[in-house]
Structure formats: C-alpha cells, structure tokens
C-alpha cells in the first residue's frame, strides 16, 4: 500500500536526519550557538569511512569506528580552539558572541570543504556498502540490505545517546551545564569538559551519519551542505536544545517530505521543511518541545 510505504520510508529518512540534528541541538543547548560547520563533520565522516576502507583495505565494519574517531577528534579540536572564547571572555567580539560563532563556524566550514577539495580531490568517491544484499522483502516492504542496517545502527546510536545523557554521570553534568552554566560551575562541574563532551558526541554522530550514508551519497567535498540545512530546520522545529524534540521533528519531517513529495509536489519537497521552520519561528518560537527562554 502506497501510504504505508511512504510512511516507513519517511521514518527511515527521519532516522538519518535525527543523527545529524541531535548533535546540533546538543551544541545549542550547552553553548547557545549554532554550529554552521556541522555539515562538514558529516562530510569528514563519509570521507574517512570511504578512504579507510578503500585505501587501507579495511573491512567496512571497522571503517565505521574510524569515522567516529575522526569526528571525535575534529569535534574536540573545534571546541578547544574556536569555541572556548565564547564563554571564556568572548574574544574580541564583545557582546556579539552569536555573530562570532556564525562567522567562525562558517569559516571553518569553508576551510574544511576546500581542504578536502584540495587534498583529496573534488571527484565523488563511492563508499563501500555494509551489505551486498540489494533488495529483500520485509513483510509488505522492499528494502535494501544497506538501508536496513543503517536504520538499525541509527536507532542503536540514538538510544545510546539518550541513555548516556539521562543516566551516566557525564551525561547528567552536561544536562546541568545546559540548564545553568554558572550554577553548574559553582556546583563544581567542569563546564569546559562538558562542552567538550557535547561537541565530540555531536560530531561523532554526524560523522557516523556520513559514514553510514557514504554508499548512497557518493562523498564529495560539498556533500554536507544540504544535510546541514535540513538539520538547522529540524533543530528549530523540535526546540533548540531539546534532544527528544529533535528526534520527533526529524521523524516528522521525514514523513512529511515523503508524503508531500507524492501528494503535494515532488519538485518542491525540500521547501516544506523550510516553510515549516518559518511558521514555527513565527507562531511557536520555542519549537515543539523546547522551553520558552526568557532573556534579560
């Protein structure tokens, strides 16, 4: 049945969106800024996975952790050198720290795209699949082995993250810092480390998303721009800083785009999310599950 097919397809796409969006919302939750280089971490993950398995002959399953590692390192470095000024004295931008974050992460995005373009080359590469099964039946649905595996891995990662934030010590420290940075530091929590953890986790997720999708997206230097724009949309719709909000919004967007493409307009399916974003910002700026922020 078409509607059911579209629904399931939308959910699967939503899962991939969620991997990207969750990290972005965490960064906002803890640093109150948007990371405009997020798409590039996705791109780096895709490239690491592809290169490690193609050039070093490593089996694809082992290349996945390599991509995660690359994401973690890059995240750590970015937070340490570019983001610290935001809360440790604001650098030379004074009150305009949001603008600083925009400019600096934009610059980082440009840098990463062009570095990869220069060092590795602009030719699209083909990431190896995790599964050679090109199609299989799953009840009434047809799906490729690759899609099934990546969907399962995505679910595992998201659940793992939720558990980490809720249950682990570091996770709870991160929650504290997100709620009240000053208060958390007074309580003795190392806020710098919490920020670091968040950045690294965010980039690991983005990098893994890129690696999992590498066989489909054919990694090229600018492959991260489009998923990034989708993530920005989702993060606001779901509520900046709310992880469950991002997950819900991701799945919602996936399903909306899937149905909208068939019943409304295939050509403009990418604009649905953007229009929804503007509507949400006007009518319910805190998003679906976000909190109304009061600023002084």
């Amino acid at each position, binding site marked *: 049945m078409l509607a059911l097919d579209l629904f399931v397809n939308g959910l699967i796409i939503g899962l991939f969106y969620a991997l990207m969006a969750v990290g972005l919302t965490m960064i906002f939750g803890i640093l109150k800024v948007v990371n405009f280089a997020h798409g590039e971490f996705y791109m780096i993950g895709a490239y690491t996975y592809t290169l490690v398995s193609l050039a070093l002959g490593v089996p694809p399953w082992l290349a996945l952790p390599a991509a995660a590692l690359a994401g973690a390192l890059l995240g750590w470095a970015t937070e340490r050198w570019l983001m610290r000024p935001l809360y440790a004295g604001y650098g030379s931008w004074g009150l305009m720290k949001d603008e600083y974050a925009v400019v*600096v992460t*934009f610059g980082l995005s440009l840098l990463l795209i062009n570095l990869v373009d220069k060092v590795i080359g602009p030719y699209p590469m083909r990431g190896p699949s995790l599964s050679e099964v090109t199609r299989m039946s799953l009840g009434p649905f047809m799906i490729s082995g690759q899609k099934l595996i990546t969907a399962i891995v995505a679910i595992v990662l998201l659940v793992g993250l939720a558990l980490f934030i809720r249950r682990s010590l570091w996770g709870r420290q991160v929650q504290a810092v997100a709620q009240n940075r000053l208060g958390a530091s007074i309580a003795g929590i190392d806020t710098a480390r919490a920020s670091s953890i968040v950045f690294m986790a965010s980039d690991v997720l983005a990098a893994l998303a890129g690696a999992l999708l590498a066989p489909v997206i054919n990694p090229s230097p600018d492959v991260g721009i489009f998923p990034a724009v989708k993530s920005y949309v989702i993060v606001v719709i779901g509520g900046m800083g709310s992880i469950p909000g991002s997950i819900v919004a991701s799945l919602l967007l996936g399903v909306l785009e899937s149905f909208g493409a068939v019943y409304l307009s295939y050509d403009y399916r990418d604009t649905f999310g953007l229009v929804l974003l*503007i509507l949400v910002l006007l009518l319910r700026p805190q998003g679906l599950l976000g909190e109304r922020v009061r600023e002084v």
Partner: protein
Amino acid sequence: MKLPSHRNFLRRKLGEEMLLSLVVLAALALVPLFVSSPYWLGVLIVSMYFAMLSVGWNLLAGYAGQFSLAPAAFAMLGGYTTGLLAWHWSVPLAIGLPMSIVVPGLIGLVLGRIVLRLSGPYLALTTLSFAEIARLVVYNSIDFTRGDQGLNVPALVDSRVANYYLFLVALAAATLLVYAMLRAPIGRFLMAIRDDEVGAASRGVNVVRAKTIAFFVSCGICGFAGGLYGTFAQLVSPELGLIAQTGIVIAMVVIGGIGTLVGPLIGAVLVYVASEMLRDVGNVQMIVFALLVIVFARFFREGLWGLARNAFARRAPAASAPPSPAGQA
C-alpha cells in the same frame, strides 16, 4: 552649542573611512588606463559585484547587527527579476534594472518584518531558510525560470570597459548611500540597535522602522548588484543564490573589516583578485581565505582596515584618538 562628543567622533570616523573609500574607488577608476586585458577587467567587474554585496550586507550585519545569511539570495532575486521581465515579457532594461532594486528591496522588507523579534541564531537560521527556499523555488520552477539551465539576460552595454565603469558607478553610489544613511539619525539608531536593542528602544528609537529601512536598503543594493551582473554575464542561474556565495561575502567583509565603511570594499577586491591570481598557484586561495576568516574572527575583529588604522594610529596618536570624556562638558 557644542555637538555631543560621541557624534563628533563617529562623524570623524565615518569621514575618514569615506575618504579612504573614495581613494579606493578612484584607484579602481584609473585601472582601465593601465590594464586592457578583457580577462582582468572582467575579474575586477566581478569583484565589484561582490563589493556591492559586501556593502549591502555590511550595512545590515555590521551596522544594524542583523546577521542575515541571505545576501546572495537577494542578488539572485535581483538578477532573476531583470531576467524574467526581459525573457517572458520583453521588458526593456530601463525598467528591468530599477526593478532589480525595488523587488528584492520589498521582499527584504517583508523578511525584515518576519525576523523582527528574532536575534542571534534564530535570525541567522530564518534568513538561511529563506535564502534556501528562494534558491530552491528558482531552481525547481523549470518552466518559468529554466531552473538549473540558467536564464539569458540581454546586455546593457557592449564593451567590457563600459561595463567596468557601469559597475564602478553603481558601487560608488551604494557606498555613498550607506555613508549618507550612517551620517543621518537612522545610522545612529541602527548602531544603537546593534549594540543594545532593548536600551535603544527604551530611549525612544523606533526599532521596527529602523530595521525595516535597513532591510529594504540592504536587500535593494544586493538585488541591484545581481541585476547588473545579469546584464554583464548575460546569464543568471540559481548558482548566484548558493549559501556558499553568502559565505564568500561574509569572508570578504570579515577580512576587510566588519562594521566599517571601507572594509567591504577592500575585502571584496582583495579577496577576489587574489583568488584569481592564486588560481594558477594550485587553487589554494579558498583555504587561505577560510583560514584568514577564522583568524580574523578570533583575533582581529576590526579586519584589515582595523589593523591598518591601528598601525597608523600608533604613528600619529593625536589625530585619530577619540576625544577624552574629561575634555568635554
């Protein structure tokens, strides 16, 4: 009656910057006397296109504090306004080009109203979404805009040199317009909004009106740049509105000096010309500029212009120091 000291300081600062801008513009005016290669004149024409975008964006972001991520989209809208009018209804450029100021300006005005209460990342994301929607609509409306294939635009003037001076005059007009705005009360209102919006509102600044004007003028300038570019390249395509293009504009302004009159000019020309010259040396120009953006954002907010001024100020401290508060009543 003495003028308040801060306004004096601002006027002097603006005056300095305008003078230097005029110097830069004059230098550009003299270039065709020495350079006749149509290729390099073409390179400078494109840098002037970017300079106009930079001037427009700098007004909105550097002076009014509205960090919009949509300047490239407005340039695209301006180019397509002129192009579509000519393509579908044979509207002559005499009307088509002015429309490339008005239509994007009005759209910008609407956008400004939408983002009135937003700030920081919300503002950036909304303008980014708007830019992407605009680009996608143009890209996908294949029957109307020819989508990815691009739209042919008639040429305004035929010779490369004539195009060069056309762009120069437009750039000069845009810079003078911004200068005039900044000297007028609206300029100070915008800067007040940038520095402390709530404070400004509490002092009676009409925030809504000021922001609306800023959006209209900024987007109008960007649109006009796009319209002119269309007549020069005789082609407009959705490429013009890519977020990456906005990224280049931001880079140019940050490197040149954000929130200064001359920063966008020197940033645009330097970055673009240097990138063309570096093209032969292995295409590293974008990496260099990206690094520069990061470095400047992190350490030198005032950009190249700021560095130059500081270097100059160290040699002639009396001339450019602001008046000390103790000295005035």
